[in-house]
């Protein structure tokens, strides 16, 4: 499966698709990136006249690249329209703010993938290479 095919299989669309590119992927982990468009709706209100990317959105970017892309890669041919995915837990430290137009890189390393549960150690970096958030994310990805 090519990196573009993985992205095309993601069950998201605008304005909630937060993956631009997968740079590297194998059975142990994934690296990908996303650039925050300044016209994204949540910047209008978070915060008033002071747009900063919400932590929940950073978490979502980490989950879409670090967990869902990797999960699709790992399930390979068994991933289809009937596959259900769900975020089950997050434990994340937010270290630096991310502003509109910033490009972030997510690096995810698999902790385990057992019985449909994928748990990863995930780091997000900004363009300067600084860590902006880091933590553990887990989800269930189950083909019926």
């Amino acid at each position, binding site marked *: 499966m090519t990196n573009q095919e993985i992205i095309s299989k993601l069950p998201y669309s605008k304005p909630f698709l937060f993956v631009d590119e997968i740079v590297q992927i194998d059975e142990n982990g994934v690296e990908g990136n996303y650039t925050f468009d300044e016209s994204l709706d949540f910047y209008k209100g978070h915060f008033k006249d002071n747009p900063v990317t919400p932590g929940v959105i950073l978490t979502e970017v980490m989950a879409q690249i670090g967990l869902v892309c990797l999960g699709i890669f790992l399930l390979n041919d068994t991933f289809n329209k009937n596959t259900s995915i769900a975020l*089950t*837990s997050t434990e994340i430290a937010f270290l630096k703010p991310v502003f509109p137009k910033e490009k972030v890189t997510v690096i995810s390393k698999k902790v*385990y993938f*057992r*019985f*449909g*549960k994928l748990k990863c150690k995930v780091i997000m970096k900004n363009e300067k290479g600084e860590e902006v958030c880091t933590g553990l994310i*887990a*989800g*269930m990805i189950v083909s019926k």
Partner: protein
Amino acid sequence: MNKEQTIEELKNIVKPYIQNQEAFDGLTEDTDFINDLKINSANLVDVILDIEEKYDIVIDNEAMERMVNVKAAMEIIENKLSEKNS
């Protein structure tokens, strides 16, 4: 394998994941992980990985599906341990 001791060990393993303290305090062989202790299916995976680590056994999908309560977990642990030592 000592039954009381195994129940105590299982209690320690499930403790971080339970959502129903009352069912946990009164835990018996018939206590169901999901329905009684309210452990969600994602955390049940962690319970099983912790059991694997504690007893140095490998639990397969088929055993995972049977592991719904304390009694089933004890049976599976006992079986896997005897397979390992035979």
